[in-house]
Every structure is written in structure tokens, then in C-alpha cells.
């Protein structure tokens, strides 16, 4: 528990936390305001038959679109954030300090990831609230009615969507965490994490039947809200199947990170 709480305190002071949150939220707000300011005249996404851009500020659909954006693009941020936290433990030698004090290696890494997962919940929640606030302002700017904000069905579905969204982001964060642990480096972890993200998207064009089971695609399928990360990709998996696979990727990533840390020779 001491390590988990200490992890929370460290992440609260860490610039990467605020940078990740700031960029994601800033992009979201910027897009919402741009849509609202142009009155939806910036063009329709996906061609003439695509959705009206103003749906981004039209409630209750705005709830799902904002959450979908955060969870979709947030996957990229989650993987880099997870990689940054795990990699720095090796790069800065702070894991070495903990091990030399007699701390369990695997417990230290797992609880450190626990703190990352807690910050992903907070990031998801606050980004969503800021996005909703921006959409509300945007709706007023664009003259779109906001009475859909109180739609009971949409509000009632949010907790489950949040849960799935967080689970998906945690899985992607764990993937970055494991990659950086294997690389023993913050920068290498972030680089490889980003490469995986875009590599999976690219591979999805040519190997859709395989890539649909890969970590970023199963995360998108599990949330079931679409997302900001991929364009046309493999057909999504059934949501419950995808949730199971997200769990498998999450647990697998953490086992890899813990096992590697447990067996590693810490020489840096």
C-alpha cells in the first residue's frame, strides 16, 4: 500500500502526467470548439453520407462521441504514459534503489502500474468532464439545443462505458509498461509503444483477421464506441469477446513486466 500511495504522489508531481492529460484534453477541446465555431461547415466526416459534424456538440450523442474520442486516441496516450513510467524506473535507477532496500521487484512494478491505472481513471473522468463542458459551450456557440444533456438512457449507459473505456486504456497502458520494462528505457519504451500503435493500424489493412485480436483493436472493440485512433480497420470483435481479450492482454503484459523485472540483472 505504501508503494501504491507513493506512486500516486509521484505521478501527481510528474510533468508527464500533466502533459499527457493536457495534450489529450487540449486536442478534444480544440476540435469541439472548431466544430462549433464553423457551425459544422468544415465538411462531413466520411464523405457525403458521413455524420454531421455538429453531432459532436449535440447531446446526448455527444457523450458517446467524446468518450469514444478519449478512449480511442487515449489509447496512444496510455501506451506512452505507461511506457514513460516503467521506463523511467530503469532509466533513472529508482527501481535499483527499491530493490537494494529489499523491496519485492514484482510487487514494486505491479503497484507502480496500479498507480498508473488509477491516474488513467482520473484522466478519463476529467477529460470527459472537460469535453462535456466544452461541448456544452460549443453547442451554445453553434446554436444547438442542449436539452439532450439530461437524457436518462445516455446518462445511464455512461458508467458501463466508462468501465469498459478505463479497462481498455489500462490494457494499453500495461502494454506500454511491459514494452518499456523489456527495453529498460523510457525513450525506447515510448518509441516502441507508438510504433506498435501505428504498426497495428497499418497491419490491419493487410491482415485484418489477425489484427482484430491485437491489443489496440480489441480495446476499440471492447469499448464499442468507435474511436479516434484508427480509420477503416478490421471488423470489430463481439464486445464481450473483446473484453476477455483485453483482460488477457492486460494480465499478459503485467506478467511479462513482473517476470522480467523479477529475473533481470540490474546493472545500470
Amino acid at each position, binding site marked *: 500500500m505504501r508503494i501504491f500511495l507513493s506512486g500516486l504522489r509521484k505521478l501527481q508531481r*510528474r510533468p508527464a502526467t500533466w502533459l499527457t492529460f493536457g495534450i489529450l484534453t487540449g486536442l478534444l477541446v480544440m476540435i469541439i470548439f472548431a466544430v462549433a465555431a464553423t457551425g459544422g461547415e468544415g465538411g462531413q466526416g466520411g464523405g457525403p453520407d458521413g455524420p454531421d459534424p455538429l453531432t459532436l456538440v449535440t447531446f446526448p450523442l455527444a457523450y458517446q462521441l467524446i468518450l469514444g474520442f478519449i478512449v480511442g486516441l487515449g489509447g496512444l496516450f496510455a501506451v506512452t504514459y505507461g511506457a514513460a513510467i516503467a521506463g*523511467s524506473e530503469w532509466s533513472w535507477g*529508482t527501481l*535499483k*534503489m527499491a530493490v*537494494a*532496500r529489499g523491496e519485492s521487484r514484482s510487487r514494486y512494478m505491479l503497484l507502480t502500474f496500479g498507480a498508473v491505472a488509477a491516474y488513467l481513471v482520473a484522466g478519463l473522468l476529467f477529460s470527459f468532464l472537460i469535453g462535456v463542458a466544452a461541448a456544452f459551450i460549443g453547442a451554445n456557440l453553434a446554436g444547438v439545443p442542449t436539452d439532450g444533456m439530461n437524457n436518462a438512457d445516455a446518462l445511464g449507459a455512461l458508467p458501463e462505458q466508462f468501465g469498459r473505456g478505463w479497462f481498455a486504456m489500462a490494457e494499453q497502458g500495461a502494454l506500454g509498461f511491459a514494452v518499456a520494462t523489456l527495453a529498460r528505457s523510457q525513450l525506447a519504451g515510448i518509441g516502441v509503444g507508438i510504433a506498435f500503435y501505428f504498426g497495428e493500424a497499418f497491419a490491419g489493412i493487410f491482415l485484418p483477421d489477425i489484427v482484430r485480436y491485437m491489443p489496440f483493436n480489441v480495446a476499440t472493440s471492447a469499448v464499442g464506441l468507435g474511436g479516434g485512433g484508427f480509420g477503416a480497420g478490421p471488423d470489430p470483435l463481439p464486445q464481450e469477446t473483446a473484453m476477455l481479450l483485453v483482460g488477457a492482454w492486460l494480465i499478459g503484459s503485467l506478467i511479462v513486466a513482473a517476470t522480467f523485472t523479477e529475473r533481470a540483472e540490474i546493472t545500470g
Partner: protein
Amino acid sequence: MCANPGRLAAVGGRSSAGTLPQEMTASPDGLALATHDLRKSYGSRLALAGLDISVPTGVVYGFLGPNGAGKTTTMRLLTGLIHPDHGSIELLGRPFSGRDRRRLFDIGALVETPSFYPFLSGRENLRAIGASGAPTTKARIEELLELVGLRDRARDKVSGYSLGMKQRLGIAAALLSDPQLLLLDEPANGLDPAGIVAIRETLRHLAAEGKTVFVSSHLLGEVQQMADVIGIIAAGRLVREGSITELLHGADLVRVKVAPHEVASAAKHLASLPGLDRVEPSADAGWLTVRIAADRAAEVNRALADAGIYAARLEAGSDLEELFLTLTADEAESHEGTFQGIATPTAPGDDR
């Protein structure tokens, strides 16, 4: 650098270096640290080739060796960061293996460069480090910040600390759990002269309290002043271990300083002393090394005086630098990459 660097020694007290505490000889079991046939390779490179060291309880143990001799590898093994290929380690009288990590709760360590979160302050870093391993208290953190002279800078981010300040913080981190055994790798690295004196005093004080301090260092003069016992390793093996008093005073030599223009004359007169092995003019101007039993220093002095040459200084026994270089010379010569320095031109016929 620090507002109050001398506070590192605030706990005061000093026992005389070279005088072994009672614990050292009181019991054959009184070892704080021991390794037996410890071996470790990195790929094809042999780092430790059967290291056997014995560190008595309650002493400052100077762990010396040339670059690449295996000092840091030993530190890593003692702290469970890496695993030995062969051999065993005993910490505080009990066997230690990687599975028995709680043994490290009684041990404080500073291995290689101190490691911190750059975005946290010194105080926050100590709290973060204290969250792992043996529990510690806020009061202990404040006490250590005071001890290492960082209290006034405790709120500043570590990214703004100098190397010496990070080193001080590293020493504080090693002391967090009030350890019985302290393992320090180059603790004086980056410290200013006042800081070096302060850490020497602090380590002496800890030993006087009955704690054991194991210090790896390249500062031979510093080790000579602070250590009770030394172990010298070369090429992964122990080449000498013992009390510093015995090792230095056991050497059969007397060093004499005379006026530089009298060196040749002094050497000529001393050469006639019975039982003398040889006389060597040292590299330092005016120094001669006389290979003779250290307890015959008075005879050397008398011989010089009889010849009308008066010694400015006279030292019986070796110093640590000379002992170190002598013991490690053979190993160094057999290893590639040893730093040779700038060769001093020698006169024709000079066979030194």
C-alpha cells in the same frame, strides 16, 4: 553548494582509524559481511573469480581495487541487484540470497551513482524511497536531511542539485532505515573538501556506534584515514585483506625526505646500512624509499645525521597508495586497457 556542509558530521564522535574495535576480534562469528568463492561473469567477461572477503562487525572496511577489478559487481551482488554464478554471501551473520530480500531491510546501500526522481524535491525523494523496503518515518527523513546538510534545499527539485548534493542525498537515502550494515560505493564522489571530511567523520561515528560500514573508494588517502580494515581486489580476486595498521606498518620500508640536491648523497650513505635491501629515490622530489625493517627508522635517521644530512620528514611503513599499487601492479600489467598515464622520461641507465 550547501548552506551547511559540515552538518554531515553533526552526529559527532570519532574513533581513531587503524585501531580495531573490540568486536573485530571478540568472536569468530562477529562478521557483518562475508563472501565465499563468489563468482560472476557478464557473458564471456569474468568480473569476479572467487571472491572471499570477511568484514568484521563495527568497522569501516575500505574496499579497494583498480577500475574493472569487480568492486561494483560485488556491491550489486551484496544488494541483490544481480545474482552470483557461484559462491555464497552472508549478511549480518546469515546467508543471503536473492529470495531472502528482507535481509536487506537492515542494510543501507548507495550503489554507483545516486538515483532519484528529478521532478521531486530532496525531501519527496526520500519519502518515495522510504516507501519501499523497511518502513521509515518523517522524523527520520528530517533528521537525515539535517545530517547531510540539505535541510535548506530540501524543497528544491533534485534536477537542480549539484553532483555533490545528489551524493549527500544518496547517503541520506542509504541511512533511511538506520541500517546495521552500510554499503557505500564511492561515497565521496562529487563532494567538496568539507563534505569529504564530514562524511569521513560520519562514517567513523557510525562504526563507533557498532555499525559496519563497507566503503568502495578510489580515494586512497581518504580510505587510509577512515578505514579500520581494508580489502584490495584485482581482477576479481582478493589480493590482500587485513587491518590497515598491520598492512601499512608491516611493510619493510622507511621513507625519508631530504633536500633534493642531497638525494644522491643520502642514498650513497644509506646503502652502507647493514640488513638494508636497497634504496630507491622516489618520484617526489627529495624522497627516498629505504627497503629496511620499519622499526629501524631511527637507525636510518642516525646514519643520515652522521653524514651531515638532516631528514625533513621520516615515515616508517608504507602508505596505502604504495601498498595498493604494489599489490595491483601485476594484475594491472596483465590486463589490456589499464590507464598508463603520461610516461615520465627516464635518464639513460635509470632502471626504476
